[in-house]
């Protein structure tokens, strides 16, 4: 944003659309194709966890080092607290999927606060939607595998509900499970990251524009304190967004496990 805005005239131009804005986000002639910065970052969000996990578990030491301990802690956390803790019996076979989405979303989210990147790939709808659709297909598949046609019929005609309420609850349940769940899962992640990204961008870019600005010394002195205030607030939000990034990865993984659990153990 700052690089793009450098072509703008702050004093005389009210609305500025930088001429080079597309060049900043797209790499032309990349292996003969046009590949965007977002796509490169999505691939980077896959490569980083793979490299970190590879170097963490490469030695397979009985007495683990710092990196191995960290990787083992993440895996153990997802396996014990989410896969086994939430899904329970039979949850172990979903561990690879849950660990994968947790790491992938975590790295994608952390790009928001990563210096020189400052762009969470999960703030683009493609990634949250794709991941929530995988979760959706898994829990629907597991539900049909466990109960057969009963999975759908239990949604439409829920057992244990007074007959008079069954049609209403059935519709709510059907819409809630088969339509709202994947959508809410995707939008929750997407909206949180978009909001954080926009907030951080506005605060830090405003700080920059108010501090580093054209004009004389008097002009700079009159606006710089405002810029410092934005910068201070931006730093606070920066820390907050770090927590949000980790939390949203955890929530997405946890809800995926909860949805799988409701299909795997419908009696609960």
């Amino acid at each position, binding site marked *: 944003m700052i690089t793009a805005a450098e072509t703008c005239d702050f004093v005389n131009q*009210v*609305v500025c*659309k930088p001429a080079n804005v597309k060049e900043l986000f797209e790499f032309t002639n990349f292996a003969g194709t046009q*590949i*965007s910065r*977002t*796509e490169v970052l*999505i*691939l980077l*969000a*896959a*490569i980083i*966890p*793979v490299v970190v*996990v*590879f170097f963490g*578990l*490469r030695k*397979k*030491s*009985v007495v*683990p080092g710092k990196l*191995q301990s960290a*990787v*083992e802690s993440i*895996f153990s956390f997802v396996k014990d607290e989410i896969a086994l803790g939430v899904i329970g019996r039979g949850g172990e076979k979903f*561990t*690879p*999927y849950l*660990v*994968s*989405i947790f*790491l*992938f979303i975590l790295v994608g989210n952390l790009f928001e606060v990563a210096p020189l990147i400052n762009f969470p790939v999960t703030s*683009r*709808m*493609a*990634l949250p*939607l*794709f*991941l929530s659709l*995988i979760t959706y297909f898994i829990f629907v598949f597991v539900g049909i595998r466990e109960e057969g046609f009963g999975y759908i019929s239990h949604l439409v005609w829920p057992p244990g509900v007074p007959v008079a309420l069954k049609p209403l609850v059935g519709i709510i349940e059907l819409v809630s499970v088969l339509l709202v769940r994947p959508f809410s899962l995707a939008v929750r992640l*997407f909206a949180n990251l978009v909001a954080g990204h926009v907030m951080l961008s506005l605060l830090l870019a405003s700080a920059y524009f108010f501090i580093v600005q054209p004009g004389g010394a008097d002009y700079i002195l009159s606006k710089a304190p405002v810029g410092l205030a934005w910068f201070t607030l931006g730093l606070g939000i920066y820390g907050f967004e770090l927590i949000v990034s980790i939390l949203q990865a955890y929530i997405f993984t946890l809800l995926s496990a909860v949805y799988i659990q409701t299909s795997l153990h419908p009696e609960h």
Partner: protein
Amino acid sequence: MNMNLEILLAEAEESGSGIDLLLPATSELVAGVAAFAIVFFFIWKWALPALNETLENRASAIEGQIKEAEETKAEAEKSKSEYDELVSNADAEVQKIIDEGKAAAEKIKEDMIAEAKKEADSIVEKAKSDSEAEKERVSTELKSEVADLSLEISQKVASSMTKKDQQKLIDKFIKDMG
């Protein structure tokens, strides 16, 4: 002001409607599928088996160390019981030595007392014997002295007596002797 508003509206129209922001870009979707496939297959095929292997190795190493520690502990307990036994035997041995020492000392004491008593008796006996001999000697000397003195006295008396008185005295003496 109106010009600015017109520019803003034109920009908004150009950048598309709000729903466009919610629709995923196909290229990003493809990149997302490829990226997630990489992560998933890596985690599924390599990372989790590697982690499980590491955890199994660690568990067996810990079990081995616990077993080794238990064996060492059992060995230490055995050594301790042997040591305790040795110490208790040593106590008995020491007590035996002390008892023997006491008995020997008691015997030596008794022997010394008996010896001393014997020696004392012998000294007393010798002293008695010496005393008797001295007494005999003194008595003999005294008798001799008395005899000499008697002789001297008798000579002096005889010289002052008449022949008749002397004969009379001798007779009386013989008579008394008889």
